[in-house]
């Protein structure tokens, strides 16, 4: 197993093991490779040997997480030109820029308003590890690094190699209303790794990635302006008086 992946997804306080997309896919590749080798060996023939040999790339993928010769996680290749999906959303927050920037910069705060992000761990040196909830109880995981940061102005990041989700983005903080308020603008590009498990990340983001980011920014605004997330408390009721 790749050492960058925790064997347990629970290091951020989760008590149940949830495999990530990458882990499931590797398991699938290894199982397929093993099946091919077993089948090939059972034939005891040159053709059988060929079938078993053909399992080699699958086995490589199962062990390494990518096909031989490919280089996953290169954000420039994955997101360059027309590739990848682009999202741009902005929100106005009635708090000074240093407060908003300071809040965002504490990566542990991010899951408080990013709906699908289960946890973010600060790895130091501008690096962080992300785990997000995907469809069907499958998680997606990636490591990211800050590539540019200007105090109270800008944070930009990209995912590192072996990401389930290759992404890059930036968040800009611009003072409004003589510094009493802040415009927070998120630009993000991401690509679900080539066709894997039906573009799991696109599903994580639902039908509209813009809507997901917009709702995340709405929650950020609520936390900073109202100091809590609005909740209706409405629930199903029953019984007669």
């Amino acid at each position, binding site marked *: 197993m790749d050492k960058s992946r925790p064997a347990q997804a629970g290091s951020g306080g989760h008590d149940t093991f949830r495999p990530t997309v990458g882990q499931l896919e590797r398991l699938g590749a290894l199982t397929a490779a093993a099946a091919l080798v077993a089948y090939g060996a059972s034939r005891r023939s040159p053709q059988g040997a060929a079938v078993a040999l053909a399992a080699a790339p699958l086995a490589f993928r199962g062990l390494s997480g990518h096909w031989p010769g490919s280089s996953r996680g290169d954000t420039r290749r994955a997101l360059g030109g027309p590739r990848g999906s682009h999202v741009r959303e902005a929100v106005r927050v009635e708090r000074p820029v240093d407060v908003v920037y300071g809040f965002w910069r504490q990566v542990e705060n991010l899951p408080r308003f990013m709906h699908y992000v289960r946890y973010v761990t600060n790895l130091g040196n501008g690096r962080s590890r992300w785990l997000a909830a995907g469809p069907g109880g499958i998680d997606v995981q990636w490591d990211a690094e800050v590539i540019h940061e200007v105090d109270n102005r800008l944070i930009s990041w990209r995912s590192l190699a072996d990401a389930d989700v290759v992404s890059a983005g930036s968040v800009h903080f611009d003072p409004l209303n003589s510094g009493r308020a802040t415009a927070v603008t998120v630009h993000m590009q991401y690509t679900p790794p080539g066709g894997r498990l039906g573009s799991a990340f696109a599903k994580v983001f639902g039908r509209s990635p813009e809507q997901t980011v917009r709702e995340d920014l709405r929650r950020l605004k609520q936390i900073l302006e109202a100091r*809590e997330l609005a909740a209706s408390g*409405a629930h199903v009721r029953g019984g007669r008086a």
Partner: protein
Amino acid sequence: MKALCWHGRGDVRVERVPDPSILNPRDAIIEVTSTAICGSDLHLYDGFIPARKRGDILGHEFMGEVVEIGSKVRNLRPGDRVVVPFTIACGGCFFCREQLWSLCDNSNPNASMAEKIAGYSGSGLFGYSHLYGGYPGGQAEYVRVPFADVGPFKVPDELLDEHVLFLTDIFPTGCMAAENCGLRGGETVAVWGCGPVGQFAIRSAWLLGAGRVVAIDRIPERLQMAASDGRTDVLNYEDVDVLEELRALTDGHGPDACIDAVGLEAHGTTLDAWYDLAKTRTMMATDRSHALRQAILACRKGGVVSIPGVYAGLLDKFPLGTAFAKALTLRMGQTHVHRYLPKLLDHIERGDINPSFVITHRASLDEAPDMYRLFRDKQDECVKVVLEPGRRAAH
């Protein structure tokens, strides 16, 4: 606890439901001592407001005693007696800071639903559909109040519930309607609808310096209530041609300001009113806007049409060309209740107004379904119903 729950068009029931609890640090739980049925509750009752769910607790005019507070509520203590604005406001967003409380950015958990319809969402409201947040309302023994350090307003013990209950909605709503007329003194104000909001719009117009107020309705007891101040002129639209009468009363000039305190379920005797009725009955239109059309036609050139009446959807045959030709100003919106509380409490304490004059019926919570029917059908000269959930029910 017991609460009044919505189950369908014309179907509300008193049911036993779980007690509310503190969900957020800025919450408070209020034990309701008095709660009223609002004319806008009838829009829910009659099925004009979308996004309801069976079991929704109705009610947005309520007051009572604080029984529990969240960890971040510093201004209230258990035992405090408060009135609660029907609009829920966080106090920290752009709109709250601009005193536009009913436009709060942060109090509607279903803002994305409202944005799909309106582009932007207004504040959350108590007991007023999931489009406005799905907050359980106050026609109940207890209610959870979010942002309790901003909304609930303490009232002095010397004043009875019936003196201050209407600070939660209809008195500020009538006052904002009159304030939106931009009165400088001596103007003629015509008010369509003599329900509770109309009554408070009339009194507020006088308080703000109107020179003449003309009230329009068809229900005799409501017109009588409007005229009971001894100075308001009244017109029964079933007996007279409103446009002609208003023209005559103003020497051919037209009223300086017109207030539509009717909203989307207007009645009328003219062709357009029957047309609206047919279209809403056959689900081909959402709102009946006869009163608003007439207000726009009646208003003098350059005047103001102020709209406290609730509209929910799309208007048909709306005479925007007339409004344009006469350079009218249209002002409207949910009430910024918080803004009016200190000033209106002052008026009550000084004795300028005793808001209890609109109350015609008092009942227990158990009688609420009957009261909804009575109020909707305008039976028994009903103008305003106050419900008293009474003593604490056994849990």
